């Protein structure tokens, strides 16, 4: 139903036209006119033929196991970072929004840590996870941190957004604290929680790629940096395009989950 309806909306076609224009401009700049500044950049034709080649010049295409290994590692790392950010961030945010004393304890700390750029954590992340899981844990940790902040703070705002009358009505109807938490605070905050999860997934990918560039043996971020060092320029763009597509799929999965859990809103969250 939704799909059939969206086929009739002009937005879909305008969006497609935007993508086509972008690729066309990219093609004209890099491969047709080969303007000076763009002459070293791989063009769409070069990237596409490499990406779909059974025998890629630089050894990375959809037919090589290497490509899937890099993509798989990145997805697995982001999934872990996102999982921990959600599992820890949502409950913390709910309690911060619900109980003033939790807010007063935790908010200043979060607000002091949040502005610190993810990359500034790199040395500490490496020191923190020496020995035990020393290869993977620092990378996941760096992706986890900003995701955790985004989830926690949005969840907290979600609780604050709940109309006071719902709490009053719940009190009138004889709720115990656990009912207020599970049946008012949690569902009431869901729209904001899912906004937070979208942002969280975005920043997790963002930091993951940076972390993989610095340390890592696999992953799309590693692939980008490695290809740059080895002058395999089309591979850089292959990895970038892959990041775009995977990020979009992540976002869509979160959005669909949100829609399913929030059937009570007449229009979706975002």
């Amino acid at each position, binding site marked *: 139903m939704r799909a059939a309806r969206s086929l009739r909306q002009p937005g879909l076609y305008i969006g497609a036209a935007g993508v086509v224009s972008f690729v066309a401009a990219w093609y004209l700049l890099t491969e047709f006119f080969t303007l000076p500044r763009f002459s070293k950049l791989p063009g769409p034709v070069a990237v596409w033929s490499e990406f779909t080649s059974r025998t890629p010049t630089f050894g990375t295409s959809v037919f090589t196991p290497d490509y899937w290994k890099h993509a798989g590692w990145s997805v697995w790392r982001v999934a872990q970072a996102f999982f921990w950010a959600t599992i820890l961030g949502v409950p913390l945010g709910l309690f911060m929004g619900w109980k003033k004393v939790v807010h007063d304890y935790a908010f200043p700390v979060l607000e002091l840590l949040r502005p610190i750029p993810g990359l500034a954590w790199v040395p500490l992340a490496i020191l923190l996870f020496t020995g035990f899981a020393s290869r993977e844990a620092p990378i996941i940790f760096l992706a986890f941190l900003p995701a955790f902040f985004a989830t926690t703070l949005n969840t907290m705002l979600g609780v604050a957004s709940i109309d006071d009358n719902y709490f009053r009505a719940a009190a009138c109807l004889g709720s115990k604290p656990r009912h207020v938490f599970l049946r008012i605070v949690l569902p*009431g905050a869901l729209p904001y929680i899912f906004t937070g999860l979208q942002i969280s997934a975005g920043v997790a990918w963002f930091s993951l790629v940076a972390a993989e560039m610095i340390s890592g043996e696999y992953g799309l971020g590693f692939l980008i940096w490695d290809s740059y060092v080895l002058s395999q320029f089309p591979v850089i763009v292959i990895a970038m395009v892959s990041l775009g597509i995977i990020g979009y799929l992540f976002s869509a999965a979160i959005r669909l989950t949100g829609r399913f859990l929030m059937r009570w809103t007449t229009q979706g969250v975002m």
Partner: protein
Amino acid sequence: MATGALGIHGVSKVYDPDGARVLAVDNCTLDIAAGEFCVVVGPSGCGKTTLLNAAAGFHDITAGEITLDGRVICSPRHTQPPGAERIVVFQNGALFPWMTVQDNVAYGPVVQGKLSNAEARRQGDELLRELGLAGVGDRYPADLSSGMRRRVEIARALINDPKVLLLDEPFRAMDALTKGVAQEFLLQAYDRMPKTVFFITHDLEEALFLADRVVVMTTRPCRVKEILTVDFERPRSFRVRASRRYLELKTAVFDAVHEEATRAFEAGERELA
């Protein structure tokens, strides 16, 4: 049926006692008998809602006491937390939008551990049917009209068998036709299971149609100005609105309210000047 007498004795409420000292309610006394439908009217912002919120247990009072069947439920020293014996229906509605109609209605008895989920749903469906809402149980509040939402909210209150219903302008945002229907459903429900009702409104016609007594409040600070007994028989039909007695009562209540409204208006002018 003999329970639910609400006593308001010498109640005062000062907001911000250390600062601006806004006197919202001043030495207000009103006894509402068990099972009485009492409608309170008065100018906007006069402190009626303050009184209702104190009776509900949402905040304390500065002087006096509020009793339920002789037991103090609100005084300067003690405010009994809100509970299912005094249920509020709010001005803007407070159905939980994330629960279906059925879950909303069943919520009270289930969280209080009084009924099993299945039994609460069964009783809820019955109440909804009586309120003319059969078949909407699995819809979400957002899918209903404002008139239906109000009835669901009243069902959600009634299922708990409260001693007192506290209604704060529940039909305020409705058009005249929807309002008329909602009032009739409320009266039907009241005739079937009389509760003590504390009902706030600005609408004098609504007050006369519903009430056993109409209490006219003064402009801020809130005090009882006049009490009119509305002696129409129950069950009432909308036809009482065409009777001569209705016109007499309407004139009386209109005079009383108009005087206060004028004072409130002039006070507003002074504040602005």
